[in-house]
């Protein structure tokens, strides 16, 4: 038979029609939907073996235990460790997103380390008799802090500085012992101490929060005392009066903005529903007096032993409070801001520098902190790249030792502050953590908690190498209870900063600026934290401020307006929102390093339209 062209066409035509009755072409059509999902530019998550690593979060003093879910070696999710004796499984929003920090667009990638070292040496040699070369350690108490102290003991004119701390020596607040807690604005439920520990203890105590703003802690407290801004000391005095004489003495009661009835009732509660604990941000002498009167010392405020250190380290420079250094005496200042407990306003630091040509070198992960004020900015690794220990938090009754074991490698070009500063004194700093661990092991007390097994083992039963290995894998050393703490002497806090003590408000600065979201000034935030700031109204974003509508009208600004916030330290641009929950006469402003430089925790201020 002859196959003609027509037959061919018929065959092809028939096949096409027949194919339409099969699933094939329809499947192809539906599959195009998948192609439209995967355009170029949409990243595809990498696949690989799922591993679990443990470490501790170094972004704040809590040092919560972290379980990292890793694809290969790359962490893709962080979580708390349930059942952990210190953090009880909690991890805050900042800690949950910390694995993004190595890729933060603001991070510093390079810096002139060699040049800086030379400049530092040169400047040290130029130091006059009353001048100093100092290290300002913004997270004192670490092993690295000991390295700095040891280095400054060897360096001529060397001084080791720590931020003003409310207590001399190691002191902890024991929330588990308290039945009534009076907090003067301490953010107890908003990042204070070890959040997991606070939550675990919360059921046991009644919380009275005394502060001008209805903060997150105030809204969750059992009682919120809306005192006038700056009236914390007055309230403390008034309560002390009630405890002593049965009623508050004027003028304190009137200054607080509360009724006598309210103050008396709080005082009675503290006295009769003990053990009591009075907390503050560390600025108010009257608060310690109150604690003394209530018998908190030794009960809810206890001494904490220091985590053991090698004997050879004890020949180190003493810890000097920044506030006690004479003004204008520091010629060379090295600031370790790679990890920060709290951001110190630059004015507190600047006044201590010599007026002519001081040298400031800062070790930072980004330009957001003191880099603006430094001559040399050296890039430091950021958690989870760092290898550092985290000192015990303020609510940790026992001494602890936990290492933030690195989850990822830091990029090339990073400067290790310990090694740099140790290098100035010829100290090898690389082994410091191992030496510390060995000293702890030698002391022979306490237990080792391992995350993987979720169990505690006495340190005596662990070999030194295994001890070190466990610490590197997220393990944590907890000291035994200190039976001998009875004789501890609690030092009164240093006098609060004079800037905040002016009694008559200056006419040109009629408002009180109170900062909130202070964590944002101290810890690096992942870009994903925009969920809480930019993409929702949950937290006040940096350089945003909230005003009472009446106050806003008086200042001539409205909702969403651009304005200038002015204090005696300078001014900054802010965006205003209205909130009738903010007291009149107050501007609630979100902290960032710039705002903290302007206001500190609170300051007299003025708001004018931009």
């Amino acid at each position, binding site marked *: 038979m002859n196959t003609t062209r027509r037959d061919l066409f018929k065959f092809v035509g028939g096949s096409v029609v027949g194919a339409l009755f099969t699933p094939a072409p329809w499947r192809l*059509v*539906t599959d195009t*939907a998948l192609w*439209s999902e995967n355009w170029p530019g949409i990243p595809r998550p990498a696949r690989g073996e799922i591993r679990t690593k443990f470490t501790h979060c170094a972004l704040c003093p809590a040092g919560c235990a972290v379980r990292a879910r890793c694809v290969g070696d790359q962490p893709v999710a962080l979580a708390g460790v349930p059942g952990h004796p210190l953090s009880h499984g909690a991890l805050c929003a900042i800690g949950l997103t910390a694995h993004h920090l190595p890729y933060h667009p603001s991070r510093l990638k390079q810096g002139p380390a060699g040049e800086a070292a030379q400049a530092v040496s040169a400047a040290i040699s130029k130091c006059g008799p009353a001048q100093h070369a100092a290290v300002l350690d913004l997270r004192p108490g670490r092993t690295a802090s000991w390295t700095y102290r040891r280095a400054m003991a060897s360096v001529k004119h060397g001084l080791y500085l720590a931020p003003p701390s409310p207590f001399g020596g190691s002191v902890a607040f024991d929330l588990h012992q308290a039945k009534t807690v009076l907090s003067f604005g301490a953010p107890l439920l908003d990042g204070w101490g070890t959040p997991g520990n606070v939550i675990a203890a919360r059921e046991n105590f009644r919380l009275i929060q005394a502060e001008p703003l209805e903060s997150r802690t105030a809204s969750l407290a059992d009682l919120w005392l809306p005192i006038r801004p700056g009236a914390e000391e007055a309230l403390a005095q008034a309560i002390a009066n009630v405890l002593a004489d049965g009623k508050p003495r004027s003028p304190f009661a009137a200054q607080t903005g509360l009724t006598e009835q309210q103050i008396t009732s709080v005082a009675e509660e503290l006295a009769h529903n003990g053990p009591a604990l009075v907390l503050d941000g560390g600025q108010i002498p009257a608060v310690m007096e109150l604690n003394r009167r209530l018998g908190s010392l030794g009960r809810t405020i206890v001494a904490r032993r220091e985590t053991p250190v090698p004997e050879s380290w004890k020949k180190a420079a003493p810890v000097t409070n920044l506030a006690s250094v004479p003004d204008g005496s520091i010629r060379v200042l090295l600031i370790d801001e790679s990890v920060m407990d709290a951001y110190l306003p630059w004015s507190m630091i600047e006044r201590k520098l010599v007026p002519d040509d001081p040298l400031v070198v800062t070790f930072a992960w980004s330009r957001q902190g003191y880099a603006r004020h430094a001559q040399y900015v050296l890039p430091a690794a950021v958690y989870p790249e760092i290898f550092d220990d985290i000192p015990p938090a303020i609510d940790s009754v026992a001494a602890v030792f936990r290492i933030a074991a690195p989850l990822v490698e830091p990029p090339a070009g990073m400067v290790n502050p310990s090694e740099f500063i140790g290098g100035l004194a010829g100290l090898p700093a690389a082994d410091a953590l191992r030496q510390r661990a060995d000293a702890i092991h030698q002391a022979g007390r306490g237990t080792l908690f391992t995350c993987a097994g979720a169990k505690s083992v006495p340190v005596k039963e662990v070999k030194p190498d295994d001890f070190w290995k466990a610490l590197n894998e997220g393990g944590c050393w907890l000291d035994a209870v200190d039976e001998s703490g009875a004789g501890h002497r609690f030092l009164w806090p240093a006098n609060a900063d004079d800037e905040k003590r002016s009694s008559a408000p200056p006419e040109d600065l009629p408002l009180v600026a109170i900062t909130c979201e202070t964590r944002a000034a101290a810890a690096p935030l992942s870009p994903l934290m925009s969920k809480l700031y930019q993409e929702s109204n949950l937290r006040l974003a940096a350089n945003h401020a909230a005003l009472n509508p009446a106050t806003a009208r008086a200042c001539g600004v409205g909702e969403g307006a651009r304005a200038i916030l002015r204090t005696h330290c300078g001014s900054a641009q802010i965006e205003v929102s209205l909130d009738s929950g903010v007291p009149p006469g107050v501007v609630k402003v979100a902290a960032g390093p710039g705002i903290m430089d302007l206001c500190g925790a609170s300051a007299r201020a003025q708001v004018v339209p931009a």
Partner: protein
Amino acid sequence: MDKEFIARGVKRCSTPRFLLWILPWLSLLAFGLYSAGLCLVKGLNQTNMDNRFAFGLWIFLDLTVIALGAGAFFTGFLLYILKLKELRAVINSAVVIGLVCYSGAIAVLMVDVGQPLRAWFTFWYPNVHSMLAEVTFCITCYLTVLAIEYLPILLRNRKLREVPSFLVFEHELHKLVYVLAGVGTFLSFFHQGSLGGLYGVLRGRPFAFREGFLVWPSTFFLFIVSAAAVGPSFILLTTWLVEKISRKRLARPAVLELLGRISGLLLAVYVLAKTMDTLIWINRTSPDAGFPAAQYYAWRPFGTWILFAEIVLFGLVPALVMLAPWLRRRTGWLVSAAAMACLGVALNRFVLTVQTLALPTLAFDKFLSYWPSWQETGTFLAVVAYGVLVYSFSFRYLQLFPEERELKAEVRQEKEEELPAMAGRY
């Protein structure tokens, strides 16, 4: 120079003059296409719509334009099914308007969706419960019907008629006109209704939610009636506008009055139905959902004035004007009433799209406001420009108004009759 494309017996302005007319509209179209292009290329972040205002200017525009374009199907229904022969004078114009409205609406819809390339998904995975699926099917089918109805008008162009096959094709097509009118009416009934149903079924938005008949909420029927009411008004309005701009008589006053009467009648029915529906909604439907109706109107600027404006000022008033014969005869009143009727329907569509989304549903929601971005406005203006351009070209080269030639002859006759009276003065 394009004289041979213009129909015999009618005059159109000179080509340069025509170019002058279309130039600004072309520029507007270009700007609008650029705006739309930005939205397609860069994404919908170019607009001011957001997660609370999921619908904005474009959806409001779509709904309004489809309601106004309803003149196409309704005039066809009245002419071919109900045999109201006078409407032959405006049926072609109505078809062009309908075509322009529907094609413009679909074009804007393609820009409005996040993934225009997936537009065929609605046809591939249709959800029979979704009003929007119904709308999509019906308006695409109806656009096809309109295109088929436009074809004869196009083919009757003086030049194109010279092609014999076109003439034959057009003639054969004309036999189908009753079928097309019927299909068009059927489809329009459903999609006008479904557009109303879009909002009436939203149980999560008690401001828009209505009870109804079986699966169709009352807004389904209200939209059909309002579209049928405003369609003739819009035809009336556009015819008058074109007469004014072209300075020609295009349709007898009786035709406009008929359109007005039909519009007024349906508008009156609509106002009655809408009032009843609103009362039921205020007293039963909304309170049953836990939303007392008074609170909707406590959010500034949407006070009860908007309800009053929609139903009385732009509903009842134009209905009464168009129903009153002595007012209908006066062009000023008639045209104003038609314009108000159109505005009333636009207001109704606005209330259901924008106000529904502005109103909070959760107790801790804020009342939000929305203002379109320039890209959104540009895209909207592109549709307007496109409509004017298509209509302008259709008016120039096609016979949109069959009575134009007769009316022109009558005018000439009137002028000649006038002359003898004037001749003696000079």
